[in-house]
């Protein structure tokens, strides 16, 4: 693979698709772009698998077309890819349907916006104030003094309705 040949170009193309898709999934913050990146990575993986079954000077694995004894390519990777493509479509449709529900409920597909709204909803459902931390205090300044662990343990028993802003659920 150190030289630039036909096969290295093919392999680099397939692996490049996988890497581009992976990067897209990790680095984008929009959920639909993640689904598209997943589709790209899947195409690269399928291509790589078909390439693994390639054999030089060989024909498609169909009998009766070529004279008997002609070398044929490996059929097993083709079968795997064949089913993987259809299943990929099904999985993408499922992902898109989840995204549609998300967009209906939260009005956005951006991960950062979604995370904020999730946390708001979660804390609202749990009956506590908005989440906060030492870095981004949500309550009034100055910060309340830190609560000793023993006192915090005793607080676990009581209902959390009156929990102070600035500390999330224990």
């Amino acid at each position, binding site marked *: 693979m150190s030289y630039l040949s036909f096969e290295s170009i093919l392999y680099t193309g397939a692996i490049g698709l996988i890497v581009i898709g*992976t*990067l897209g999934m990790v680095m984008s913050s929009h959920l639909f772009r993640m689904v598209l990146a997943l589709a790209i990575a899947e195409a690269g993986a399928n291509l790589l698998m078909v390439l693994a079954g390639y054999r030089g000077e060989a024909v498609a694995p169909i*009998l009766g*077309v070529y004279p008997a004894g002609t070398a044929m390519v490996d059929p097993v990777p083709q079968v795997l890819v064949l*089913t993987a493509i259809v299943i990929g479509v099904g999985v993408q449709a499922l992902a898109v349907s989840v995204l549609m529900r998300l967009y209906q409920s939260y009005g956005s597909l951006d991960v950062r916006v979604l995370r904020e709204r999730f946390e708001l909803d979660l804390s609202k459902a749990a009956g506590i104030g908005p989440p906060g931390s030492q870095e981004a205090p949500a309550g009034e300044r100055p910060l309340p003094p830190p609560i000793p662990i023993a006192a915090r343990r005793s607080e676990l028993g009581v209902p959390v309705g009156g929990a102070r802003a600035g500390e999330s659920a224990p």
Partner: protein
Amino acid sequence: MRNIASLVFAAGLAFLLLVIASEIGFGTPKMLIGTGILAQAPDQVGAANIVTAVLLGYRGIDTLGELSILFAAASAAGLVLARRRDTGTAPRPADPPGGFILRTGADLLFPLLLVVGFYIIVHGHLTPGGGFQGGVILAAAFFVLVLARPAGGMNHTAIAWVEGLAGAAFIGIGLWALWDNGDFLRPLLGQGVLGELLSAGTLPLLSLAVGLKVGAELAGLMTLLAEHSAEPEASDR
């Protein structure tokens, strides 16, 4: 920081895959199973298309598993996009203006796609193609109609019946083989003459079952998505 970590991760992945690919070597498959199947399939299965012989003969139970994955995805999507059935109180929305060419083109395309899809399914054991590919074309045929007339909708009950019967037929053929000679999904009915339409035993039947199931499932999935986006609900919350 996160971007740098992602880049490093992607570079490592690329390096790993390149090294593996260079170790495999190009054009000389290392897998013995492919060579073995190529040597044995003409005598054992009788299907001209060895890919179909592997798909429905040697790996038939894997295909059943893949069908169940597809079924799980389709039912999960149906579950996610489910809505309360309002019994005809609201009038069905009218079709958006599409024009004569779109509607007539869809009507013309529908039977052609059906024929191509069934051709590919039925000839799956002879030519490139088979249940999965033909099923996708069948799904496309029904989806063309839905795209041209979004308000028309589709009969989901019929789709569910076709899907269920096709899946049951696949398992039924497998059980028949189990009862007949003790191997689940083993091809039955003899091999026939290589290259004829009625050959390779039960493989064409399995192919038909796979095609109908895949077609019904994908058509139902895509129609569900299209219907859902065509008539958004007022509010879910």
